[in-house]
């Protein structure tokens, strides 16, 4: 392998490419981080009508209760 034979143009391409990949994913990370806050502001200006809100979901609580009862039953 002869790294001295590599044209500086391609070294610059590699460095630029890595920079662009990092820039793109960093921008995405920043966008994701700010997204909940932006959506909260939009929700404040344009609130979701009550009939469009999703129904209250207590599935997790029910699953936890069933799991507790089963565990209690098996350990007795």
């Amino acid at each position, binding site marked *: *392998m*002869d*790294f001295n*034979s*590599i*044209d500086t143009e*391609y*070294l610059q*391409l*590699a*460095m*630029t*490419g*890595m920079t*662009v*990949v*990092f*820039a*793109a*994913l*960093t*921008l*995405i*990370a*920043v*966008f*994701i*981080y700010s*997204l*909940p806050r932006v*959506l909260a502001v939009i929700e404040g200006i344009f609130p979701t009508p009550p009939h469009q809100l*999703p129904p209250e979901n207590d599935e997790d609580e029910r699953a936890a209760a069933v799991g507790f009862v089963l565990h209690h039953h098996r350990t007795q």
Partner: protein
Amino acid sequence: MENFRQFFETTGFAYLEPGNVIMIVIGITFITLAIRKHYEPLLLVPIGMGIIVGNIPFSKDMQLGVDNQGAILVEDGRVLTKSVEDSDGTKSERVRSRPGSVLGYLYFGVSHGVFPPLIFLGIGAMTDFSTMLSNPKLVLLGAAAQIGVFLTFLGALSLGFQPEQAGAIGIIGGADGPTAIFLSAKLAPGLLGAIAIAAYSYMALVPVIQPPIMKLLTTKNERKIRMKPPREVSKAERIVFPIAAFLICTLLAPGALVLIGMLFFGNLLKECGVTERLAQTARTSMIDIVTILLGFSVGASTAARDFLQRESLSIFALGAVAFAIATAGGILFAKVMNLFLKEKINPLVGAAGVSAVPDSARVVEMVGLQEDSENHLLMHAMAPNVAGVLGSAVAAGIFWSALTN
């Protein structure tokens, strides 16, 4: 006797070379690994069978191979035509053409970069970005793993490959089969077979390649780090994300337009909630059909005379280096991030920046469980895993834009 000789010259035995036999054995080996060891069976069975089909020799007159996609006949620089009488009695000139072979027509989807974006559509329709949305800093690990792509690019240049070939070889480090095939078709079609086989082989070997590197670069205590469970992500976030992320990535790297566009289109079909039928088709029937055709035609393109060259060995060696550097890059960047973070990242998760979804995330889970049987890292590892898909697609777009005249 003469009749027998003439018949013999129409058989494949007359043109069989040692290289064909070697490739047929390789194809059988792939199929055996898929069936007995369950190494990526959905890919290795079509590729293995394609290798066997593509290495059955025939006489040149039969034009059965992938390189016969049909052609317009030309003589002395002039397109040949033939006179045809239409149903109403009028005569017209039609261009004379030679029909392509079935393998050639199937290979069209590979050689013209049609199949990989369709695969990405299906991948988008089955990918859950919520782990990435719940912990955005892990996205940077997917970026860090792409160091394998660019260092392998330089390594390939130093070995004497042309820049376009080096770019296509470097993308093996992205550990993304469709992206590797897409870029090879655009930049280095002559190396497509070797690059595709190398990329898919190493993706199947992720559980073998990654763990030693992960253990070498991390301490026992680091491997035991527990991370906070991911937060709940709202439906609105999951709908807005694919559109916004597509705009960000493609405005920075327009060469990634097709791959990333299809990836996020598929994800939008899944998340919007009103196109479940389309999403279901994209992630099941459609992706299965394209996977069959892609794998089979890539395998059929690996004819011995093109595949068994010294270049192919170099490509395989560079592919292994690419995977190793990508794994190391993700892990080391996680350790650097930990210097500045209060809530530490388990560095093993960095290895999942190699975008072999979901195998490298599963490897992280497995290695993490070896140190602490209650430390489940799978969901955390999925974040850099899917980020790595974006990173490798952006890297491919950069190479395509920069290295195409």
